[in-house]
């Protein structure tokens, strides 16, 4: 364990983000998980908000909206109400874990070589991180461990992912952004088509228009809704603040970082190849 330079921290934080994302995010695209939620009569959105939010406990939908950050609360709150009414947090946590493990088992096999070592390193990182200001990470930490090779690998990836996600919300709220603005900037940052992804977060055309107007007023986007140079710097500063919030995780992984990435990368690629995650994050994110 040592002190990482800012440059090394920035690069490692982003490479770790890209490597864990398909492995833990697979649960959102796994037919096995969807089937589990469907047993309770839940379609995609209530299944998504309920299963991911369940680690917080039986909280009101507004608390799930606060933790997920970029979604319009108007779509979160009724979905959570439905998820709690039809299934409840305990049932959804169980369905989520079963679905994730079944899907990863199908793609990677039940005991991929090195899984226990990767879990050990990720867990060392997660154990070094604090709860402060990180709702989903704290919720996941309250759950304990599945106790199977793939279950523990999945949980350790999810912990690292949600810690970064929680930090990212702190970074963009502290930078004075509102959810629709943060979401529109993700599209620009990842060079995606305008509005498509943001629409899936429940925002109307009017809300997106207002978001663009506000971003223009702040000098972050230009008249064609593209980044201004100052806007690129602004968004990079948000990403760097996110990276910097992962210092405790990355310093605890320390010199074993390359070994960890060598283990995770083929699994992440296998999940993407099996269409278990829509895109290789490395092709859209910025290092």
């Amino acid at each position: 364990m040592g002190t990482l330079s800012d440059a090394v921290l920035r690069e490692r934080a982003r490479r770790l983000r890209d490597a864990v994302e398909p492995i833990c995010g697979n649960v959102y695209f796994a037919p096995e998980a969807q089937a589990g939620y469907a047993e309770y009569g839940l379609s995609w959105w209530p299944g998504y908000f309920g299963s991911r939010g369940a680690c917080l406990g039986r909280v009101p939908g507004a608390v799930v909206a606060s933790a997920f950050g970029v979604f319009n609360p108007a779509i979160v709150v009724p979905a959570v109400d439905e998820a709690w009414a039809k299934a409840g947090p305990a049932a959804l946590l169980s369905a989520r874990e079963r679905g994730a493990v079944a899907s990863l088992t199908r793609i990677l096999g039940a005991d991929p070589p090195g899984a226990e070592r990767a879990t050990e390193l990720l867990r060392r990182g997660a154990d070094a991180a604090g709860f402060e200001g990180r709702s989903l990470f704290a919720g996941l930490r309250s759950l304990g461990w599945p106790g199977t090779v793939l279950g523990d690998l999945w949980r350790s990836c999810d912990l690292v992912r949600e810690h970064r996600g929680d930090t990212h919300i702190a970074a963009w709220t502290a930078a004075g952004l509102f959810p629709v603005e943060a979401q529109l900037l993700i599209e620009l940052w990842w060079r995606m088509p305008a509005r498509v992804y943001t629409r899936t977060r429940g925002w109307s055309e009017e809300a997106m228009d207002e978001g663009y107007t506000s971003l223009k007023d702040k000098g972050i986007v230009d008249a064609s809704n593209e980044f201004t140079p100052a806007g690129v710097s602004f968004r990079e500063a948000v990403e760097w603040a996110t990276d910097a919030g992962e210092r405790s995780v990355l310093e605890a992984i320390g010199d074993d970082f390359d070994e960890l990435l060598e283990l995770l990368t083929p699994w992440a690629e296998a999940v993407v190849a099996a269409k278990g995650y829509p895109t290789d994050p490395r092709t859209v994110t910025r290092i």
Partner: protein
Amino acid sequence: MPAIASSTDAPVARRLAALIEPVVGQVYFSPECHEGYVRLGFNPSPGFAGGVALPDGPAYFTSRGSVMGQVPGELVASAFAVFNPTAVVPSVTYGWTLTDAPTICAARDAGAVAQLRRLLGAAPAGLTRVTELFTRMTDTLTPEGRPLFAGLRSLGVPDDPIGAMWRHGDLLREYRGDSHTAAWVAAGLDAVEIGLLTELFLGLPIKSYIRTRAWSEDQLAAGVERLQSRGLLGEDERFTDAGRALREEVELRTDAALDRAVAALGTDVEELFGLLGPWGRTVRAGGGYLAGGADDLARRGSGMTADDEQGAARD
């Protein structure tokens, strides 16, 4: 704990926080609340600071956390942010063996309103107007990244006129607190580091108030060392220029999160402040809130070890 800002030169959002604090934060020192928690099985107030009754640790963590629902202690630790989770998590776990979220939340509301009614009277001057102005502000706020605000928002507003004012004031207080947590997390600080910097920011001795947050001597020493290695504290454990600037930046970003609310208040700022000021003075004079805020707890903290505090929180 919002920074104390009585000066009229301070940003409006900061002055608002300072004026709201005794009227809203009195819930944590309300004997009526403490009695309500005792009826649920919690311990009574463990003692006084400057004549003000301090809260039992588990009752405090469980009651304030209950606004989010019946949540795990880890989530309470993340939302309260500045406390050592080893004090928070067992307190909340224990709390849920005694009560449930709707029950203790109702006791919290009732005790807060009861103390305000006792100290301010059943119909304090300007009550309707303060509630109206608070509501105008809270209507502009949204829940992203603000778990305590989001929880409070989902509770609805009490029918009682004092309760309605108190709920909206608590929404403003927790929104600022949640925003403050985001600001220091985004500044790359952890719970111990922000606690130490805040002491200096408030003009308190270093490693005094933070002891009420249950950190050990070793954790505090390691925090000081990290801040020194980042150039935020000098060898003398005082602010460097960079440290002072970073801490002020955190507060400015916290203020900025209230921009929409302050804009909604518009030209009614001084009217609101004129109504709140006397209420806060009355609450403090009646022992409903610490006379000096953080200072009182710092004086108490500096006379106790962190282990004592953790013990107090557990017992």
